[in-house]
């Protein structure tokens, strides 16, 4: 058993190697490259599942304590900072999901990037290299024993998201493939936006890590969460709060950036500019999951502050989660881009996870993370399949002479319609994902969302006042309704009604390399919820519920199934779904949207995402650019360089005075005078050079005469 655990470092290493091999050697061979990438992630999946099995078989002690491997890494004064790998119940739960979903996405990508077809993506191999690195980052994050490795993996993912979101910024604008120049620019800006926005969070996390390391001298999770360590952190006061709270908030800042929580959520919808498998990867298995994972991993820090001073770290998680859940769900109502709707849905669902964690329940949050990973990957891949089909349809339409030259976006739901007949397998998969997302029994989303709401409901009822858990529950329940509403709208727009464009009319089903992963994921979306179903005894709870027991502050006990909560949310979900579906299933092109008609100006606000992007543009980006130019001008034009040049000018002025003195007096009278003397002498003397031999001889004779006279008589 120990032997198998010792192979843990290989899990992130396989995709990392795949990345290195593709970039360095095989990037010219497309099929080989994608095979290497898929092989790498497949090996990781196999090893990961083996480890999951090994962990489960190792018994409860192993679930909580786990296994670890340490490497001395950074000499620090008299100590050495170690870096290492660890596997416990929580890791095992993640290891079940992450590599598998990645594998599905990889396989799907082969079809999506059109392997072997004439219009295959020109940077096909590079794409697989990047997603391999992405997977390596996430897997490294999951098996990290400490915050160092976690942060390294975390940032590697940030880099990959940058590379992949901007992946299509290299494309040439091309009307045949419906790529316009604006789209290329958007891809570029989206990549930058994603990186910088998450970077803000990362820097907060970085500060948190530095502070933690400063105060405790260690970054290993298990050592950080020792009661005595936590007590030390509680005792130190920083900015008027216990240090542990400050650190927890900083760490949460990192998660806010990475998991696209309000107010740093703005990058996620824009990230849709990347190829769809990337969206799936980011939204399901990797990037956004990392933030939630981080908060879950460091939950004792949040709770420790909560315990001592009723300090707000944990509350903040819940509040931000609730805000994000509602914000995402409402904005999702007003979007036209099929992937953007899903993006806002992701934001909203991530809010749910944060809500769960903010209530102190590790399992509720992570359970939702796991189920969400499956059904959101499913939804995105299905959406990709839809887009793929529509693009294909547009191709055929253009071929037949319909709608040629007319510009449209294949992502636009307004042009679709009636696709359930043309893409039946995709439709089934999409429907499964949608039902899971909305939370219909027995789909996975029902169980996980219910657990979060039940947790909130339970805490509210336990207290009895209109406390935070009440508001969280309310937000979650409302959010569930909105979720159902926008999913109903989407299903109606995409799959029901009549096709509203030639492209949709000619759309047809995607290749099996795409649909097979969809079916597999659909099965998981249907069944995965049972891993923590109350009537099966909450198995997930047992596996990972006790990983934080070393801290003595996190107590994990499963909340019993609450029919009231489940009933309310299910009724709302069904109502929302039906409402959305019925309003939109007969939507015709050009018609005013039913929601717009009903909501009026509110709809405009939603459509513009509460104007948050514009606010940032005005309040942050422009001032920053302005400040940069301002500083540059200080440097170059206004203060420093003028001063330096002034000093130089003063020096020159002084030297000018000296020059006048020099040239007027010294030079004029001494130096130049001498020169002129010789010049004149030369002018006169040259007349002696007559060229007449006899003149010279005469001079010789005179000289000899004089010398002779001198010699003889003086």
């Amino acid at each position, binding site marked *: 058993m120990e032997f198998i655990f010792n192979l843990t470092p290989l899990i992130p290493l396989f995709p990392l190697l795949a990345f290195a091999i593709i*970039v360095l050697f095989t990037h010219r061979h497309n099929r080989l490259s994608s095979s290497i990438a898929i092989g790498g992630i497949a090996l990781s999946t196999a090893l990961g599942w083996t480890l999951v099995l090994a962990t489960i078989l190792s018994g409860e002690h192993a679930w909580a304590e786990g296994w670890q491997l340490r490497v*001395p*890494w*950074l*000499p*620090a*004064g*008299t*100590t*050495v900072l170690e870096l290492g790998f660890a596997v416990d119940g929580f890791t095992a739960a993640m290891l079940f999901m992450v590599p598998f979903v990645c594998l599905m996405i990889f396989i799907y990508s082969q079809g999506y990037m059109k392997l072997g077809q004439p219009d295959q993506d020109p940077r096909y191999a590079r794409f697989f290299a990047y997603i391999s690195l992405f997977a390596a980052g996430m897997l490294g994050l999951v098996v990290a024993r400490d915050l160092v490795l976690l*942060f*390294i*993996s*975390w*940032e*590697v993912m*940030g*880099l990959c998201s*940058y590379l992949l979101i*901007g992946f299509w*910024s*290299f494309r*040439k*604008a091309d009307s045949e493939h419906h790529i316009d*120049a604006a789209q*290329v*620019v958007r891809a*570029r800006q989206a*990549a*930058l936006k994603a*990186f*910088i926005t998450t*970077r*803000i969070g990362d*820097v*907060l996390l*970085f*500060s948190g*890590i*530095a*502070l933690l*390391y*400063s*105060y405790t*001298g260690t970054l290993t999770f298990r050592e950080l969460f020792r009661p005595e360590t936590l007590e030390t952190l509680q005792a130190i006061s*920083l900015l008027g709060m216990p240090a542990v709270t400050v650190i927890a908030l900083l760490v949460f800042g990192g998660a806010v950036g990475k998991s696209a929580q309000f107010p740093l959520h703005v990058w996620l919808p824009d990230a849709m500019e990347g190829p769809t498998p990337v969206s799936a990867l980011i939204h399901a298995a990797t990037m956004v999951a990392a933030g939630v994972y981080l908060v879950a991993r460091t939950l004792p820090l949040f709770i420790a502050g909560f315990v001592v001073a009723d300090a707000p770290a944990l509350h903040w998680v819940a509040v931000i989660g609730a805000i994000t859940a509602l914000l995402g769900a409402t904005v999702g109502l007003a979007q036209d881009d099929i992937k953007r709707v899903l993006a806002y849905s992701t934001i909203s669902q991530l809010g749910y996870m944060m809500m769960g964690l903010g209530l102190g329940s590790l399992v509720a949050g992570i359970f939702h993370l796991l189920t969400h990973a499956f059904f959101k990957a499913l939804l995105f891949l299905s959406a990709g399949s839809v887009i793929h089909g529509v693009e294909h349809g547009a191709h055929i339409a253009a071929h037949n002479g319909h709608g040629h030259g007319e510009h449209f976006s294949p992502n636009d739901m307004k042009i679709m319609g009636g696709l359930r007949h043309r893409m039946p397998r995709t439709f089934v998969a999409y429907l499964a994902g949608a039902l899971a997302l909305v939370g219909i029994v027995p789909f996975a989303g029902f169980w996980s969302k219910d657990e979060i709401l039940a947790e909130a409901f339970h805490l509210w009822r336990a207290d009895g006042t209109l406390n935070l858990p009440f508001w969280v529950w309310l937000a979650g329940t409302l959010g569930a309704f909105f979720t159902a509403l926008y999913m109903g709208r989407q299903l109606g727009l995409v799959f029901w009604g009549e096709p509203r464009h030639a492209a949709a009319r000619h759309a047809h089903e995607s290749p099996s390399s795409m649909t097979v992963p969809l079916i597999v994921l659909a099965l998981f979306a249907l069944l995965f919820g049972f891993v923590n179903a109350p009537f099966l005894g909450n198995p997930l709870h047992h596996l990972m519920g006790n990983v934080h027991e070393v801290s003595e502050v996190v107590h994990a006990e499963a909340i019993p199934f609450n029919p009231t909560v489940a009933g309310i949310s299910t009724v709302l979900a069904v109502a929302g779904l039906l409402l959305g579906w019925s309003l939109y299933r007969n939507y015709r092109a050009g018609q005013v949207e039913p929601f717009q008609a009903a909501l009026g100006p509110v709809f405009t606000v939603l459509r513009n995402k509460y104007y948050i992007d514009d606010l940032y543009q005005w309040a942050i980006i422009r001032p*920053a*650019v302005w*400040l*940069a*130019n301002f*500083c*540059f001008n200080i*440097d*170059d034009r206004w203060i*420093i*360089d003028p001063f*330096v040049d002034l000093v*130089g000018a003063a020096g020159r002025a002084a030297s000018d005075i000296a020059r006048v003195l020099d040239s007027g007096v010294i030079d004029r009278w001494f130096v130049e005078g001498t020169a002129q003397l010789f010049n004149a002498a030369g002018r006169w003397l040259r007349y002696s050079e007559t060229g007449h031999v006899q003149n010279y001889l005469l001079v010789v004779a005179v000289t000899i005469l004089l010398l002779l006279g001198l010699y003889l008589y003086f």
Partner: protein
Amino acid sequence: MNFPFLTLITFIPLLGAVVVALMPGKHERALKLVAVLFSVPSLVLALIAWLLSAQAAGEMQLLEEAVWIPTLNAYYRVGVDGISLPLVFLTTLLTTLSLFYSAYTIKKRVKEFFALFLLLETGMIGVFVALDLILFYIFWEVGLVPMFLLIGIWGQPQDRPQYSAIKFFLYTLVGSVAMLLAFIAIYLTTGTWNILQIPSLKPLAGNPALAIAAFWAIFLAFAIKVPSWPFHTWLPDAHTAAPTAGSVVLAGVLLKLGGYGMIRILLPFFPDLFRQFAPWIGVLALISMIYGALVSMAQWDLKRLIAYSSVSHMGFFMLGLVAAAASLDVANPVLNSRAIALNGAVLQMFNHGIITGGLFFLVGVIYERTHTRDLKAFGGLSAKMPVYYGVMLMTALASLGLPGLAGFISEFMVFRGAFALIPTYAIIGIVAIVLGAAYILWKIIQHVFLGEFSEERWQKIFNPAHWHFSLDMARFEVITMAPLLFFMVLVGVYPAPVLNGINAATTALLAGL
């Protein structure tokens, strides 16, 4: 007498300079070959010395001592420890790479260029190994003149090379004059020039006013070289004007002279004063970091941008130094924090040398092809030059501190120390990291590599008749970058081998204050 490593490392390049200068100027190939070959022994010896001495790098290694100018009481006294060894190695590495790179790119006055470059190397290495103030000062000045000429003569005509060269020269000279006066004052109270001995003699302890003056005088010299805000404006001009290899060594090594001086001289000589003034110096460090990053963001000239990023990155170094100096406590947790901060500072110098040196090489790559550095003139080059894109991306990411690459390690340690010792500064300084990502990705990567490639625009700046190597990175350019990339990854993934020596030396240094 042991094998005279340091003397050989220092003076073989000088010998090379003389040989190159005496060779007939007609045989350019032979000249270049000789110059490169003369830089290699130093590199090899420096590497061997590093590997040999890293274990016991807490104290001075490979000491050599000889009477030099008896009337001045000046000795030829050299030695290295864990702080100077990486810097000596960095110097020899970057010089060899620069000479190798220049062998392909320098076209005019070849002989003088290579002779001066080797002379420059001697000056730079000398500063890192000198343990006598007179010797230190002389080497300090020796490096100045060749750099001045490199900028002035081989600078790009459109970048005002003379103005830049003179600006560089005067800035540095102002500092070094102040420094020399302070050195003399120190000598008058201690009676020795020995850098290792002076700290225990408490220089100028009896005269606080003079001590403060001397402290700031020395600080000025080093701050100009680092360069710290507001003494930094020579840097962008010098970088812009200098030829590629000059920029590489300027950023890679010359800036480190100032940093090294602060650690080797300023901190041990005046620990109390340094602690007393740490808040002020910390403010300068913060301004350098944030201001440098902001100004960097406003640039449209690739070289200026990287030059300002140097200001920002050397601000990180200063922050680490200030954190280490802000307390004199040697109790264990605090000492560790201080050691980590100082480790971070030293490693930041090494990393900055590797990374920014690499960045300047990479600017050279595009500049040699297009003869422009205007960011607006590029775009979409990743499709045209994929290898260049990959290498540049990696170097840029190392520069912005991506974990897994070198820059992160030193930034992490600097902030780790700063958060423990001067948290307010650390919190403010964090902003610079975000800005770093912004200017590197937004300006460099996005404007040069992303977006749509325009054949028309490219034709305007690229003339195939003037470029005889492959369009993507040529082999010699890849060879030049390869060692730098190797160290970026090595330090980023497994920093222990590099850090062990540094850690031993900084711990010993701080414990001895």
